[in-house]
């Protein structure tokens, strides 16, 4: 069998048989403890500066940001952004409880469809699970209430994120997922898909010159809800 052939070839080259039991226990322990390595100091900051670093990095990567004091202010922020970009006020939204709880106006001007994105959708609104200040990265695990296509198909991707979900380093964001998410199938914490998104889609394949909006969204807009008092200066 191929599996045994490959493992056998590896062991022969390494000049040993299968990993001895005591060593295997050590390796298993390393997997289990998943120790951290050196974490760059740049994101080890007091809360307000950490949030500011996140926002700066989003903008450095060609994303845009709107900061709102509470969830109730999200609809106006999105409507304002869409108007400013000359975009239609209709969008497809993640069926996430936090997004549903937002008091969307019963205005016919803002048309919302819940579900996964269709290729015809111009604007999508996604729920931001967590974010990483170190690089301005959004962590978007694909779960039933956070469909992956919302990150990819629309030309304009809007992500609603609570400031309390911003972490310093990438490892900190993984720790959140490790602690909070249970995958029924494996008993682990990984859903089928976890996307780490840093800015809008881009390509430099044509004459080595950066253009935004290659296959994914051309615009990435973060609506940040300031739900974290220590984060506000």
């Amino acid at each position, binding site marked *: 069998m*191929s*599996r045994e052939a*490959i*493992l056998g*070839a*590896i*062991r022969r*080259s390494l000049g040993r048989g299968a990993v001895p039991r005591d060593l*295997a226990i050590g*390796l298993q322990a*390393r*997997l289990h403890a*998943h120790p951290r*390595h*050196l974490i*760059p*100091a740049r994101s080890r900051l007091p809360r307000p500066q950490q949030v500011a670093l996140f926002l700066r990095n989003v903008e450095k990567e060609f994303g845009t940001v709107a900061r709102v004091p509470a969830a109730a202010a999200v609809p106006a922020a999105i409507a304002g952004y869409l108007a400013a970009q000359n975009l239609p006020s209709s969008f497809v939204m993640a069926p996430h409880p936090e997004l549903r709880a937002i008091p969307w106006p019963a205005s016919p001007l803002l048309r919302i469809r819940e*579900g996964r994105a269709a*290729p015809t959708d111009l604007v999508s609104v996604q729920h931001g699970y967590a974010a990483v200040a*170190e*690089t*301005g990265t959004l962590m978007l695990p*694909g*779960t*039933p209430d956070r*469909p*992956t*296509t919302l*990150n*990819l*198909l629309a030309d304009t991707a809007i992500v609603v994120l609570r400031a309390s979900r911003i972490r310093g380093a*990438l*490892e900190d964001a*993984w720790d959140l997922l490790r602690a909070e998410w249970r*995958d029924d*199938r*494996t008993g*682990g*914490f990984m*859903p*089928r*898909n*976890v*996307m*780490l*998104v*840093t*800015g*809008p*889609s881009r*390509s430099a*394949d*044509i*004459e*080595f010159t950066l*253009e935004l*909006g*290659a*296959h*994914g969204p051309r615009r990435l807009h973060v609506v940040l809800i300031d739900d974290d008092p220590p984060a506000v200066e």
Partner: protein
Amino acid sequence: MRATSTAFKENATQALADARLQKALVFTRPAFPTRRAAAVAQLPEFEQLRDIARDIKDHTLANLDFYLESWADKVERSGGQVHWCSTPDDARAAVLAICQRVGARTVTKGKSMISEELAINEHLEQHGITPVETDLGEYILQLRKEPPSHIIAPAFHLNREDWEQSFRASHTDLPPDRVFADRRDLLAEARAELRARFLAADVGITGANFLIAETGSSVIVTNEGNGDLTQTLPRVHIVLASLEKVVPTLEDACTLLRLLARSASGQDMSVYTTFSTGTRRPGELDGPDEYHVVLIDNGRSNMLGSPFQPMLRCIRCAACLNHCPVYFTVGGHSYGWVYPGPMGAVLTPSLIGVDQAGHLPNASTFCGKCESVCPVKIPLPDLMRHWREREFERHLPSLTTRAGLGVWGWFARRPMAYRLLTRAAAWGLARLGRRRGRLSSLPLAGGWTGGRDLPAPEGDTFFARYARARRAGPI
């Protein structure tokens, strides 16, 4: 991909005479190092992270069987399937069998170097299945039937006119008099064409930058988002990965990710870094129903325990290509196979044989720049030297090369004669180049001076100066 590495010299001669290629090389050459340097300067821990990354990879390789088994176990528990393939034939057969079982007609593909190694596209086409490359650079190369010339910027050797010409020739359903005012128009057309392909595809094939033993995940890193559409929209997702891609934990991957994009394109982080673990879960709206990983050895297990084991640390960032004076003189196609530049010069002979690729380790000035930028500190020049020795032992170099080395060896073993000869040569060359300080032609070295001048020696040898300095005082 059929190797033409034996024809490196002819390929390189052609490349030097190709004015358009030379223009692209001159244009791109400064950009890569500048961007990397800027990103590295922003991260004071970068050097320390390189050491840690090397150690993570070494630890994994020393226990590769253990980590592969842990990883495969997790893949299966999350609803995926691992296909263990020793040879490219095994891997091609595994991919084809999946595609045929699900009745696939078109397959979209994310960028993957291992896919080039396996020549998977040709194999699918022979069996009536249409593969569609979706990375923009790979897409145009597929239209032009050209191999990639760089491992992360596959089409940088083409200019805008080439793109326009290929699009007009291939997208014949669009009005022939349409105007491409700027690059955006090219991008928009490719995006629209490929959107339709993404939606129609039955199977999506991606590579993997990493496999995570702890979780059974495969990781892809892209800027365009094409890899994500490839692995999200079709019903079946196939990952092609060589076995050295595995790392133990997410934390290990975090450290490597901090180095990867900075070393590659000077970004802190690529736009999309995506972890795939098994198939779509119940209740989920997106994701594939089948998840397969075709795990490929193709000669790598032989490299373990050999002097070439460190090459398996490679994370394919391309920094060594981007800083290589030889690569930027002859371009990627000259190397004649999938992997160009310094990493290719070490890896290619391991994978297809030193008799096929013996020229590549010789295509180096040993300036050492590649090793100094490699994020996992692979001693690339040392490994190239190993290949040169093996090539010599097997009597592969030409008679002239062997005779030349013989002459040099005779003098090198006789220091007095060596010094006499070099003193005479230094004196002679200094007189010849006295007026301009450099020599633009030399007897027996016309090939060398064809592309550059030789700085004229100042009249003394190194030994003479060293001895003089010693006498003058401690150095």
